[in-house]
């Protein structure tokens, strides 16, 4: 991955994989409700994908300097298995952690590259993922930890 | 005045007094039968020092079908006021006149005739209009006379008036379907 185009394609592909992950899981669950939730997650990932596609056409990514709040919820929750009887709480944990992993990935890539243009691209992607994580963390805070 | 009650007890030997009640040390009430009232009042004036007729008025107890006259008498020396009540049948309200006892009594009686329709036979100028000229309704102080209805019928109201009840207004706008339809026929 040496060009902006290649990196964006990689990122777009990852979002597609995430969307597929949720829609596959949705196929397997038996309840109308979790199916609806997971298809919603999948749709969210497709939205991310669409965002990156428009970056490819010239839109700006998030500025690397812009602060994205880290609620650190993902850091201290345990890993859960995406099983067929998954609950909303666990689905949100899976999602937060996936976004966090993606954020790590791009951050690491940015650290290992010298080209300033690509570095800032990776940092920008990392920021996007941080924002996605924040979205799921806020939902976890609102829907799951309502009383805490 | 502790002796107001004593006084009424003394009078009670010659009169059938009831509902004796002391409101204040200087104010008491009692009730006398219609037939005895004027004689009682005269004796109170002449023998007991109640020389001042403070006022004469009437209270309408429409629910019980009675009028209650109040003769408010005052004794200047004893500094005591005594209200003598007399119940009248609301449908045949007539009372002995006291215009011979106090000069202003005729005016009170004329007013009571006009405002409540109570008759005081022999009272001077009884049937002359007092406050009302050309009055074509029932006596206006009767409880059944509805002043608001009369004024709505007689006078025109300003256009553009009309008020909205706050909770009804909020219901109409905010939750119109949240009410039970009037139940029809048992279900």
């Amino acid at each position: 991955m040496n060009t902006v185009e290649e990196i964006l394609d990689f990122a777009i592909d990852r979002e597609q994989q995430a969307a597929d992950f949720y829609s596959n899981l949705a196929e397997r669950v038996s309840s109308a409700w979790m199916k609806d939730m997971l298809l919603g997650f999948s749709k969210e990932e497709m939205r991310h994908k669409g965002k990156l596609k428009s970056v490819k056409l010239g839109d700006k990514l998030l500025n690397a300097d812009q602060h994205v709040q880290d609620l650190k919820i993902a850091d201290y929750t345990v890993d859960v298995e995406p099983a067929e009887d998954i609950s909303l709480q666990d689905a949100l944990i899976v999602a937060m952690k996936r976004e966090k992993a993606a954020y790590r990935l791009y951050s690491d890539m940015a650290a290992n590259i010298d080209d300033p243009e690509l570095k800032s691209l990776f940092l920008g992607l990392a920021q996007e993922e941080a924002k996605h994580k924040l979205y799921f963390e806020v939902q976890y805070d609102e829907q799951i930890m309502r009383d805490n | 005045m502790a002796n107001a009650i004593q006084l009424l007890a003394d009078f009670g030997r010659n009169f059938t007094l009831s509902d004796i009640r002391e409101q204040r040390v200087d104010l008491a009430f009692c009730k006398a039968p219609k037939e005895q009232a004027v004689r009682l009042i005269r004796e109170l004036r002449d023998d007991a020092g109640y020389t001042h007729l403070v006022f004469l008025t009437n209270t309408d107890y429409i629910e019980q079908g009675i009028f209650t006259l109040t003769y408010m008498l005052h004794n200047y020396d004893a500094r005591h006021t005594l209200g003598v009540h007399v119940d009248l049948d609301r449908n045949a309200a007539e009372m002995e006149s006291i215009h011979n006892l106090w000069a202003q009594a005729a005016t009170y009686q004329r007013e009571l005739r006009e405002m409540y329709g109570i008759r005081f036979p022999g009272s001077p100028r009884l049937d002359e209009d007092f406050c009302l000229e050309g009055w074509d309704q029932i006596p206006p102080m009767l409880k059944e006379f509805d002043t608001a209805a009369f004024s709505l019928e007689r006078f025109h109201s300003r256009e553009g008036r009309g008020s909205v009840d706050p909770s009804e207004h909020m219901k109409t706008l905010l939750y119109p379907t949240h009410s039970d339809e009037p139940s029809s026929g048992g279900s």
Partner: protein
Amino acid sequence: MFEPNPPIDLSSGKYLKLWQGPQHPGITGNMSLELITRGDEVVDCKTHVGYLHRGFEKLMERRTFIQNFPVVCRIAVPEPTFNEYLYAAVVEELTGIESPPRAEWIRTLNLELMRLASYLMWLGGIGAAFGQSTVYQWTVTHRDYILDLFEEMTGARIYHMYIVPGGVRGRLPEGFEDRCRDVLNRVEKLLHDVEKVLFNNVVFKTRTKGLGHIPKEMVDPYGITGPNQRAAGFSRDLRKDAPYLVYDQLEFDLITATESDTYARSWVRYLEMHEGIRMLRQCLDRMPQDGPFQAKMPNVLHWEVPAGETYIKAECTRGEYGYYMVTDGSEYLRRVHVRGPSYTHAIALMEKLAVGTNIADIAGLMVSLHTYPPEIER
């Protein structure tokens, strides 16, 4: 007691029927006198009222207890405060609410200021009725100074609506006492002037002495009260005989006279104005500066007064003013009867005194009795 005047045959041509009022400068307020005259002499008089009838007592039966408070002041235009006080007092007695001491002092101040203002207007009236309209200009101006005080104290000049069941509606404004003292000084000075110009006036003396003489034995049979009674030699004043508010803590003299004519009645009132100023100064000196001015009240919107009845009276400028109220435990009163002194002074008494007087004196006689028609009609 009631002695009808001898029958008069109008068709005989000896008599003239003359209507004085209902709009007449010599009549206090809107009422009319139907006079039968023979030459200058009045041989018969009938009082006609009703021109101001608004049915207050009836109106009050369909208003809640708090809603009546703005109504009552209208029963005596130049002297609304007595109605406010008495209405408040009956409601307080029937509900067991006690107005706090500070309110009682403010109420007394109010009533005496009102008395002074009302007497000033009357003083102008008696002057004007005997051709001394300058006095009228002076006194009405000074009454205006007092109305200024009422305006700043209560928010209104005439219908103060200030004494409310439970107390009064607000504290005295800042600096009120000083301004009040200043007005009292001015009124006092004026009174001395009026004494020179009116009471020491040969015309006034000649016309008023002997006019409208009320024999002492007529007083109780006609229900005569107030200055009209005191000028006939009776030492009766409710502020002394049945002290209310803080009158038992005030020093003042009871004014009486013996001649019982128009001059004597005027002179009694004149001296009472001085006594009023004396009481007002005491009120100002001793007015509590803090503490509540209203008792703890229930929610007045649905105020139910326990069943009962009472009668409370006060000494107003004209005599015994009283409220008789009957309640039945509901949010509305069952009956209120307002007893105003004019009821008998302007009708039974006037009709009696007018006979034998001169037409030119009718206005002065009327004013000397000091009557207000709205308290007759209620």
